[in-house]
């Protein structure tokens, strides 16, 4: 505990643009509240319009939003480009899948009968992902730059091939899950109930992440990102902060995987492909890196775009690919940046 206190919040009230800053901040808060209200209104909208598939669509949005927010924690605030984050998504899903498999055939797992209770199983799965994240992060953070990208990719691929090799659990074909987990004894079979659970988890997770990046820990992380040499010279431990961030990020991505397994009632190695890792990064960039709210929006827009394009043409990738290039080339601040900039001009 010999570390020097990290720098405190940047926008001191005396700075000349503090007023604009506060207005932008307020506008961002309104956007956020409106967004949450819209998400909560989805089940009623679906019922009113008689299109129940909307709930299913939005459940997918929300689950991926959790993963994108988690990735933003290290991508946006730590500049750690993890190209293997889908592994944690897959791991979370497979913990649920494998436990469900043993519960269904009554065989038990290392003498444990297994459980269908979300309050027990989900934290267990998330814990597993955090553990895996800590291990992978500890090894990967010895490198930086392109080597970091490649070593995280390597771990992601190792995990992918491990899943393919798990013949007992379906191998390449994946593993079907018989029933959704129960939450405190209550069934989540109703899509609306499950959707609301996902939304609540997303909101709580976003709140938590904003608390994390605004805390002393978050400031230290960002200071290491901005100027590593200087921060280390000031007494910040170079490994501890990124490692903890990586672990938290892995846990959050794992939670998304857990929810996905419950949503799709199916897990397969496809959850852990490197393309999936790339998609998660694309969601973060699209929404706006380093904003927490942005990536959640980015995930929804990305998946919405995908849904819309697939309905339109089978060859939707011909549009999505160049769209990705354009987003990278011109959309530096992301959708969230666009929205808040719009707010600033008006305000």
């Amino acid at each position, binding site marked *: 505990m010999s570390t020097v206190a990290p720098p405190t919040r940047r926008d001191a009230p005396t700075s000349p643009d503090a007023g604009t800053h506060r207005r932008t901040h307020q506008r961002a808060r309104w956007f956020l509240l409106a967004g949450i209200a819209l998400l909560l209104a989805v089940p009623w909208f679906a019922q009113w319009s008689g299109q129940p598939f909307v709930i299913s669509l939005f459940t997918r949005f929300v689950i991926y939003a959790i993963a994108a927010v988690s990735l933003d924690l290290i*991508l946006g605030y730590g500049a750690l*480009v993890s*190209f293997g984050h889908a592994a944690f998504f897959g791991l979370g899903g497979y913990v649920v899948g494998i436990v469900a498999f043993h519960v269904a055939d009554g065989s038990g797992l290392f003498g444990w009968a297994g459980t269908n209770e979300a309050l027990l199983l989900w934290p267990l799965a998330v814990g597993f992902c955090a553990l895996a994240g800590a291990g992978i992060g500890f*090894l990967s953070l*010895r*490198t930086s*730059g*392109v*080597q970091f*990208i*490649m*070593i995280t*990719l*390597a*771990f992601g*691929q*190792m995990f992918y*091939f*491990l899943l*393919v*090799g*798990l*013949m007992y659990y379906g*191998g390449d074909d994946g593993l079907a899950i018989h029933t959704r987990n129960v939450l405190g004894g209550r069934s989540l079979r109703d899509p609306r109930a499950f959707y609301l659970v996902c939304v609540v988890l997303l909101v709580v997770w976003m709140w938590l992440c904003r608390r994390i990046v605004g805390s002393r820990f978050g400031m230290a992380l960002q200071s290491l990102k901005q100027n590593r040499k200087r921060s280390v010279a000031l007494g910040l431990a170079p490994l501890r902060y990124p490692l903890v961030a990586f672990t938290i990020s892995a846990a959050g991505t794992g939670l998304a995987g857990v929810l996905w397994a419950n949503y799709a009632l199916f897990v397969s190695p496809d959850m852990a492909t*490197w*393309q999936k890792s*790339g998609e998660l*990064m*694309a969601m973060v*960039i699209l929404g706006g890196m380093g904003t927490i709210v942005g990536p959640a929006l980015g995930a929804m827009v990305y998946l919405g775009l995908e849904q819309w394009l697939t309905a339109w043409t089978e*060859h*939707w*990738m*011909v549009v*999505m*690919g*160049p*769209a*990705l*290039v354009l*987003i*990278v*080339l011109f959309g530096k601040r992301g959708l969230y940046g666009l929205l808040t900039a719009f707010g600033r001009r008006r305000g």
Partner: protein
Amino acid sequence: MLLFVEQTLNGIQYSALLFLLSAGLTLVFGIMNVINLTHGSFYMVGAFCATSAAALTGSFTAAIVAAVAGAGLYGFAIERLVLRFLYRRDHLDQVLATLGLVLFTNELVTIVFGRSPPFMDIPPLLRGSVELLPGLAYPLMRLAFIGAAAIVALALWFVLLRTPIGMRVRAGADDHEMVDALGVDVHRVFLLVFVLGALLCGFAAVMSAPLLAVQIGMGERILITAFVVIVIGGVGSVRGALLGSFLVGMIDAYGRTWLPMLLSGLLPAQLSDPLASSLISASAYILMALVLLFRPFGLLPAR
């Protein structure tokens, strides 16, 4: 013993393929500092051009020309249209933009060439096999592949180390701002290296088209392995790419033969077989992780 020789040759052949792809990749990365995931797409474009040229004309020479030209032109177009805007961006942007291009190319090739995987015959000249040792007949096509790759490697070595152009390329890799200041158009050097890399991809594609499956997504699989190779060898270093190719290729070839035997002695069959195949698929990544843990900049770093 015969099995050992045969597996060694197979390993060398796989290494040769990896080298053809990673040489261009490592130069592009070393000189322009660009992570280019599209490199594998050039390989796929080359393979599809080769198979359709062969199907149309029935001539292997036409297939070679089509593959090299197709991959080269596509590489040229990609560099001019997209990649030159990415030189000054960070790696995250490069990864995402080129990932978008990979997805685009996959779909484009599906639209142009159709979904059914094409097939290419071994040219008559290279059909049959040679008896290398008594009892060991080895396919001529595979030997030709090794030979052709060796010639390309030698040519590459000569161009890079013994010609004025090669000198500029190496200087650009060292310090491109200084080279720019000395009056060399670095962007032309960049373009040259980029297209050269794409040409090598096209050549690798046509040589491997009769041996391996030509299909959508073939580029990504081999591309990721090529990345592993250059990270093991040290990014930017052609010698490193050669060493990395050999390590990855040989481990793959030997692992395929002896790992299942080894594991089946230790574990029950239903457990050992899938474990062995997973381990072999992951072997390159395990090797890379090990190398990076002890030599974070690869075995033979460029500088």
